[in-house]
């Protein structure tokens, strides 16, 4: 509850300096709210100057803050060098660019009546309330009375914790639990549930998994000998016999997707190897207990027909198993290995034999050591890149620009989905070089640049210039270097449906308003940590704005 703590310390600081002719001004609290830096010293002004000097006081407070920050990093922010100067970890909430607030930009103010934040457009003056002190947002200045000023205070006390407490104390079981209990109770008599379509069944499976109620009993509901596909999203509670039941009841399964299957054993995989003779797509997440031997046996027996193999969170999948995949599954078109702690450069050589790949994912290689490095990755992509429609290199932190310019650019001509999120070594120049005049590629539909923290405006501009017609989903989460100019140019992407601009601090109401007007296909904008987006920003039907700060957080505001 750092928020409350800060607020209280502020109050006590003001009380200490309670001389009669000094009026405490709450400005520092409010201006520091957005960045949560703790440079705020209680600013007081002489009463004789009156409230007219408030603006000056605020300006001086802001400039003193700026000075304080200048002492910390005395370089000029506009060239972006200071970011590289920072060697240690800087908490994101405290980190801030001066450059992201260009001169003459819009200001964020707090409405004195509804306490919502709102944008004061550059060069305009907002309406004030009756006393002439507090500023009013557009919604309130249109309204009339301010008799209800004291009313909200009382309700505010119903804090989040209280609601949570009430929810915990409430002993009435939820309707979902009741239904699942009922289903589990009469699982033997499946006919009693009546006819349910396969689509509904898949949905019910998701619901039951979300309620974490899938177990050896309830799994029976989803085992139908006619099915060729099975997806179970939470296998935590299914015991060994339940997992064996999958192969016993559904021998025709071609595609098997098991998430959180920590209880799956070598014996289970061996049993699948023997009985699921038509299996051609396997997706496992978290098979901690399964060893190499079982995987190798599986690939040797049914690998011939395998089209798809995805594995996540495995600590026992070794180089030997990768070699087995690559030798025994010549038809493999999709290979995804994520968070396999043993993954390193050695693995890439055998994978380069899989020339039929259309989708390749190698994400989060081993934490210790180098993981996947540039040179072997370039070799791999030059070998298999021409067929790839989708490439996922999420979290490969050691990769450098050469992967983009020497491998992806010349070889990945069919690429439509590119995910390089978390590849922190990629630079603006590298990404710009990839996209500038990349004529062999017809344009990406999905681009994920999340947390490639070095990327600046030029990278995004080049990507937009190349793919603005085709781009459907774009993720630029945490690219703090971006400025408003680059964000505005996003409105060229006419077909964009999903956009994540979280933690891009330059994002503000004006840019969002432009998206609302020009990107008519946009369905979802994610704006976590965009403190310059206020709840007064216009939106339109069919567009979801996720993560606006004002929708979730009560901003402390003291009347004065």
């Amino acid at each position: 509850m750092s928020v409350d703590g800060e607020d209280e310390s502020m109050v006590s600081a003001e009380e200490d300096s309670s001389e009669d002719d000094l009026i405490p001004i709450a400005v520092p609290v409010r201006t520091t709210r957005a960045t949560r830096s703790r440079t705020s010293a209680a600013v007081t002004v002489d009463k004789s100057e009156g409230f007219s000097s408030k603006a000056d006081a605020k300006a001086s407070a802001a400039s003193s803050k700026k000075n304080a920050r200048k002492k910390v990093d005395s370089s000029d922010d506009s060239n972006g060098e200071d970011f590289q100067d920072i060697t240690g970890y800087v908490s994101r909430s405290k980190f801030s660019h001066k450059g992201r607030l260009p001169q003459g930009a819009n200001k964020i103010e707090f409405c004195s009546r509804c306490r919502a934040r709102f944008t004061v457009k550059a060069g305009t003056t907002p309406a004030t309330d009756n006393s002439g002190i507090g500023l009013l947002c557009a919604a309130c200045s249109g309204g009339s009375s301010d008799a209800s000023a004291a009313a909200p205070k009382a309700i505010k006390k119903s804090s989040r914790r209280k609601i949570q407490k009430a929810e915990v104390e409430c002993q009435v079981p939820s309707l979902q639990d009741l239904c699942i209990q009922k289903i589990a109770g009469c699982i033997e008599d499946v006919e009693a549930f009546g006819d349910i379509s396969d689509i509904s069944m898949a949905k019910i499976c998701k619901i039951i998994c979300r309620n974490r109620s899938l177990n050896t009993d309830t799994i029976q509901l989803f085992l139908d000998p006619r099915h060729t596909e099975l997806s179970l999203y939470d296998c935590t509670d299914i015991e060994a016999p339940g997992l064996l039941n999958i192969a016993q009841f559904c021998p025709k399964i071609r595609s098997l997707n098991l998430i959180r299957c920590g209880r799956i054993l070598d014996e289970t995989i061996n049993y699948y190897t023997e009985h699921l003779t038509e299996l051609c797509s396997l997706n496992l997440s978290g098979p901690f207990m399964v060893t190499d031997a079982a995987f190798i046996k599986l690939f040797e027996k049914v690998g011939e027909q395998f089209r798809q193999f995805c594995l996540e969170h495995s600590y026992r999948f070794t180089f030997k198993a990768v070699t087995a995949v690559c030798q025994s599954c010549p038809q493999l078109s999709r290979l995804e290995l994520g968070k396999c702690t043993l993954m390193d450069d050695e693995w890439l050589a055998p994978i380069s034999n899989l020339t039929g790949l259309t989708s390749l994912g190698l994400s989060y290689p081993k934490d210790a050591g180098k993981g996947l490095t540039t040179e072997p990755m370039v070799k791999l992509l030059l070998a298999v890149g021409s067929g790839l429609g989708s490439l996922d290199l999420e979290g490969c932190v050691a990769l450098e620009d050469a992967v983009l310019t020497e491998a992806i650019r010349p070889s990945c001509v069919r690429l439509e989905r590119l995910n390089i999120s978390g590849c922190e070594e990629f630079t603006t120049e590298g990404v710009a070089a990839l996209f500038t005049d990349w004529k062999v590629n017809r344009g990406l539909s999905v681009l994920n640049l999340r947390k490639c923290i070095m990327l600046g405006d030029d990278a995004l501009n080049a990507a937009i210039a190349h793919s603005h017609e085709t781009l459907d989903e774009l993720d630029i989460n945490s690219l703090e270097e971006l400025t408003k100019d680059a964000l505005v140019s996003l409105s060229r992407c006419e077909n964009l449906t999903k956009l994540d601009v979280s933690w891009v601090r330059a994002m503000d109401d004006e840019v969002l308003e432009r998206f609302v007007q020009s990107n008519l296909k946009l369905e979802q904008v994610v704006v976590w940590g965009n403190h310059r987006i206020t709840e007064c920003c216009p939106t339109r039907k069919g567009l979801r704005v996720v993560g606006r700060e004002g929708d979730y957080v009560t901003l402390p505001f003291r009347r004065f």
Partner: protein
Amino acid sequence: MAQATESEYVTLESSDGFQFVIHREAAMLSGTVKNMLSSSGQFTETTEGIIHFRDIKAVILEKVCQYWYYKARYLNSVTEIPHFDIEPEYALETLMAADFLDIFILVHEKLRV
């Protein structure tokens, strides 16, 4: 406040045209309904207090309404809570409806006053 004019009851309409008029408080136990009725935008659900559920049949919606009253009745009671029975033939569909209606609201609870 706009809420001053709103009535004590809301109308829920099922996919096959049955209307259920129930107490607003009971319906508000559902996260989805609560969001629909208390949204700050001028949606027809908010202004007229009628909600159409195009995916929920009358038998299921009736069950759900019964559950809301059951929950409202025993929410903070100290007496023993009787069992709420669901017919097995409706269990799956009720589960789907419940999932749609009862999105976990704590996370999205709007705390701004």
